[in-house]
């Protein structure tokens, strides 16, 4: 005690020393927990963090035989090449418009579905509705696009049948129509995933205090009023978090479905950044250009996420972290 009073600096040092000592003891005591973390940490290091080091090939003229360090440094040349190419504007526009369209169209349906499922009192019907709406989620992207090709074919399938019944002579080939690409992409996604995405909202609604409904009923609130004034406000925090997560991924459009839906007739609309990165990188082996386009995309995406998250933090107190 006397020493501390005489030498405040010493006290401070012994403070961080003590902290370090405590941390060391903590690690020693919980070594088992670090052992449990080890596989995940090592795998992420090898296959996520090491490739981040490789991102520098975006600034080099990379060839596999010379390796990363051996390839000449070219600075922003690859980025300039991309932005000067006639495709770049089109690619960015295709990516952003398709993403925003999916976000806006896809976001409300799971919420509406959950609100409706929550209102159904016939138990059997509720179960059937839930299981049927979940099922399409398990269909793989490959099979889903296959189903779309078959069912929307003008000569076969449901679309062809309906067109014939309605007396349409030459029904348009929807899957080959560039102007239909985005609509087909987005609405088939809603069809496939709205049910599954509603699970999280249904779970949230299960936590509503039943006495709220009772009180509202006593006050003479109708079903629709109860839904609007109790259920909807209850879902807002969940909805905001999910919206942030999706908005932060606007540039991160899934590769698989777009790639599988592409055909020579719709590439003007269906070529997005992720398919372009794949084609120039893996098929025409322009590694550095591909890495540069990819990096541009990742950075924009990251900045968007920070912006959206910061914005929602300011508005309310919902935030990802």
């Amino acid at each position, binding site marked *: 005690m006397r020493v501390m009073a005489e030498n405040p600096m010493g006290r401070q040092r012994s403070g961080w020393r003590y902290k370090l000592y405590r941390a060391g003891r903590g690690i020693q005591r919980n070594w088992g927990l670090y052992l449990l*973390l080890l596989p*995940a940490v090592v795998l*992420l290091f090898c296959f996520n963090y090491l490739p981040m080091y490789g991102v520098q090939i975006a600034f080099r003229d990379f060839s596999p035989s010379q390796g990363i360090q051996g390839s000449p440094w070219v600075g922003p040349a690859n980025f300039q090449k991309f932005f000067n190419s006639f495709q770049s504007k089109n690619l960015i526009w295709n990516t952003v418009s398709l993403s925003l369209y999916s976000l806006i169209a896809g976001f409300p349906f799971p919420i509406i579905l959950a609100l*409706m499922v929550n209102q159904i009192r016939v138990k059997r019907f509720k179960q059937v509705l839930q299981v049927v709406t979940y099922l399409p989620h398990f269909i793989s992207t490959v099979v889903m696009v296959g189903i779309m090709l078959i069912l929307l074919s003008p000569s076969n399938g449901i679309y*062809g049948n309906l067109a014939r019944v309605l007396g349409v002579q030459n029904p348009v080939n929807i899957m080959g129509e560039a102007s239909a690409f985005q609509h087909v992409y987005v609405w088939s996604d809603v069809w496939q995933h709205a049910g599954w995405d509603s699970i*999280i909202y249904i779970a949230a609604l299960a936590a509503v205090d039943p006495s709220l409904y009772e009180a509202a009923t006593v006050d003479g609130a109708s*079903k629709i009023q109860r839904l609007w004034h109790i259920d909807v406000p209850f879902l807002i925090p969940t909805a905001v978090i999910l919206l942030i997560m999706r908005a932060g991924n606007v540039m991160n459009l899934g590769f698989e479905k777009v790639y599988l839906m592409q055909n020579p007739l719709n590439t003007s609309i269906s070529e997005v950044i992720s398919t372009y990165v794949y084609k120039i990188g893996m098929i025409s082996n322009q*590694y550095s250009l591909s890495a540069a386009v990819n990096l541009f995309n990742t950075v924009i995406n990251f900045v968007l*996420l920070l912006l959206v998250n910061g914005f929602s933090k300011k508005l309310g107190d919902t935030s990802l972290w």
Partner: protein
Amino acid sequence: MSAQTIHKSQKVSKADVVFNIILYGICGLILLLIAYPLYFIIIASFSNPSEVSNGNVWFWPSQFTLDGYKELLRHGSIWMGYWNTILYTVVGTAIGLIVNISAAYSLSRRDLVGRKLITFYFIFTMFFNGGLIPTYFTIRDFHLYDTFWVMVLPFSVMVYNMIVARTFFDSSLPKDLLDAAQIDGCGNLRFFFSIALPLSKAVIAVIALYIAVAQWNSYFNALVYIRSENLKPLQLVVRNILITNQSLVGAGDGMAAQEAMRLANLMKYAVIIVTTVPIMCMYPFVQKYFSQGVMIGAIKG
């Protein structure tokens, strides 16, 4: 006074009746919109393909046939893909569970020194990555390109699932349990394996389902990292049949080509069913675990 109350409640119930009619009407329509296309594929797979293209198949199979499935049986590459996918799914799910659940448990412990830093290490990879080409060369450097292991090991860390599990451990394992076990001299590993895991069957089942579905349906990794025919998973084979129409290549011309086309169309329906039904069958086993606790975990994280 009492008359007024009755009158009021009648008015309310009338609005509710209208509400119910609209509610059940819309839900019935949704049911039909989702179920009918699925049902159509099932009946079309048992129908004569020319009946399907003539628009005679609506509610039940027309001119019942099993030709599509028979043709499928002759298609060797499908069965190779099937076998590969089963292996990838079983091994991939096992690895994914070990890696993610054990890390999730550690992250759920408040007394883990450096917990925030390690959590950041994981979460950061959700939003930033090296991208396709650098990852591709890393995989090559590790000599994993075109091997069995590339499908099950490098991308087995799924941070989203890890967070779901972490939140579950954090909120549903009573803190006193750990205290009591530690007083009795139980170490962390033993506590994890013999107390935490048996109490967490729900979250393990749900995450196993997520991983298994992702593995069964995975396509992109195989497209980029697999070349050998004998390593190709089901989805790559199915893509050739459904989307690029590869089964038609070399069918010749005239009658033979027409017959091949007819069979190829029929086989498409059969392929859809054979590849999708097994993974759909997993859902009922896990359904009971989709309780609120597990799902809410996803957003609290």
